[in-house]
């Protein structure tokens, strides 16, 4: 599967190195896997013992306080947007970065459309799995929509008035 990654070097299409494992399916012994939060809570020790990294799949409306204590050893958090108009995922991402110091990969999955990508990135997301049928090239172009922002977010600390004030 392909997704979009955006970092200091810009945005690009990439192959996904992770395997999303549904709850009913056995977790492979090796490789980077994304599992549900419940599964992680039930068997963190065993999962940590594996070779291969652990990613968590969480719903966008998950209270951040529930997630924060679970992040030790987690290399990726995939936040699912049920509908692109549900803005809770943005606060969740922001708090993971700013408040809980999460430094792993943050991935947006679910109903992810091109026109939200820049907002998602500013809230701390690194990778983006677009909704079905949506063009990845269009998505990459989205990150060029704006070259300047007014307010601080997860990406930087400088409100625009401080950039321009002496």
């Amino acid at each position, binding site marked *: 599967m392909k997704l979009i990654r955006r970092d200091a070097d810009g945005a690009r299409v990439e192959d996904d190195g992770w395997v999303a494992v549904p709850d009913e399916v056995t977790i492979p012994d090796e490789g980077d896997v994304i599992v549900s939060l419940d599964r992680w809570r039930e068997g963190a020790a065993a999962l940590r013992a594996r070779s291969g990294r652990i990613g968590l799949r969480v719903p966008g409306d998950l209270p951040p306080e529930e997630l924060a204590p679970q992040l030790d050893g987690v290399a990726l958090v995939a936040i699912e947007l049920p509908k*692109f*108009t549900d803005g809770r995922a943005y*606060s969740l991402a922001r708090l993971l970065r700013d408040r809980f110091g999460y430094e792993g990969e943050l991935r947006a999955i679910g109903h992810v459309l091109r026109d939200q990508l820049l*907002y998602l990135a500013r809230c701390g997301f690194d990778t983006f799995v677009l909704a079905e049928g949506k063009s990845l090239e269009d998505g990459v172009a989205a990150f060029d929509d*704006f070259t300047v922002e*007014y*307010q601080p*977010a997860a990406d930087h600390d400088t409100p625009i008035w401080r950039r321009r004030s002496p």
Partner: protein
Amino acid sequence: MYQYDAFDQRIVEERAAQFRDQVLRRIDGRLTEDEFKPLRLQNGLYMQLHAYMMRIAVPYGLLSSTQVRKLAHIARTYDKGYAHLTTRQNVQLNWPKLEDVPKILDELAEVQMHAIQTSGNCIRNITSDPYAGVAQDEIEDPRPYCEILRQWSTFHPEFAFLPRKFKFAVTGAETDRAAIAVHDIGIRVVRNEAGEVGFAYYVGGGQGRTPLLAPCINPFVKRHDLVSYAEAVLRVYNRLGRRDNKFKARIKILVKQTGAEEFARLVDEEHAKIADGPLKLRDEDIAHFQRFFRPPPYEVLTNGDTTFGAALLGKDRDFARWVDHNVAEHRVPGYAIVNLSVKCHELPPGDITDAQLDQVADLADRYAFGRVVVTHRQNLVFPDVKRKDLPALHRELAALGFATPNVGKLTDVVCCPGLDYCNLANARSISVAQDLTRRFEDLAKVHELGDLQLNISGCINACGHHHVGHIGILGIDKGGVEHYQLMLGGSSGDTASLGKVLGRALTHDEIGDAVEKTVLAYLAHRKDESESFLDAYRRLGPNPFKEAVYEAHPA
């Protein structure tokens, strides 16, 4: 007023380009209507009954004459030659074509304007007191704070998809002319005992289906916490606001259900964690914005510096009445605040033609330092006019038709577009406004009634602010037939109150008579001329009015 720098300019130009691309993708099918809808809404583009409607942002209602001329040009070129002033100090076009909207945005960007976030579930226009900067009772000019909040909220990535729309109002005067009690966040600039400036934060007010007055959740937010506190409120709302039911999704519902005290605690908890972060304002930051709102080059005058005195006021009754009703006191001696009554029978309330806009721009340049403000009553204000220019300005305004001495009176009707234009409406509002304006053509009658604010909304969304009208009219649908609820006793000022429905719903044919009877009842029962309609209603209660309106046809 605020002047864009290279960053601001780039942002509006990039936004126009982004929307141009979104329109293309809608037209070629890469975006479905469902996907396009929130995007066009965030650029203020609604689909209405007969056409698109585009809402252009006018931050805290303030316009330069250059911007007014551009609006005239846009109305002429891309619309049917008129624009509409709204109750949130914005300007609307009723007939733009989809493919023209990117061009309109480009033209707006040329004069530092845009349509960003004037719709959608995001932070909307920051509104304020139309007398901001010049009111006699001003504590501190709220406009720099409005501008700071505007910039903080524009394209805020975390709050682009709130449970519902979010409206701020900020007042800096002792008298609230910004209706802070009925906004999602209402901010009052205050001074504490030490004389320090801070902000009283009122959160959870609103009109619509569940009208509520905002409780004060923090009586003194420190000056440098203006933005971080707002961010804390928004984050709590974004996380906890209801998303299951569109009609229960505003912050007012969250505050009511949580309780103001607990809500305040949640905000404080969040705020404590971010107060010392990058949103903390420094003195230099505030000073930077205040520089844009420095007073214009006032001449040194006194209030006695007029070319008119008692003699002219005695001779020219029209002028005298106009000064009485449409001219307000100014902070600076020798100056005055002039209200333009944009209402007239021929046009729906709030509508203004391209020719009128051009003339307003011209008058603003000659009399008012090139500044105009859109008011919540769908009128305009020239904030800075020399008193000695008042007679000449009055003559010119009269020629324009904007000198009717009825500001704040019954025929200064506040009225949404209603079922004639709006997709959301249940009933026509404009025809009711026009009927009542005709019935009360006689200025003597209007003045006899004194301050009397009539607000008409075509539906429960309350764009006409009917909940805070002294007389409020709400259009409802009864089996496909237009009906109206008549409510009395609302007020948006310092003693804010929500109007109460008087009795059974009335038909389109009945509502005009009902208002006349209401008004006659007031005249019959008021203590004396000095008791306003609102005071009389509050003293008497609804019964005398109910009897007058419904006696022949009791509910």
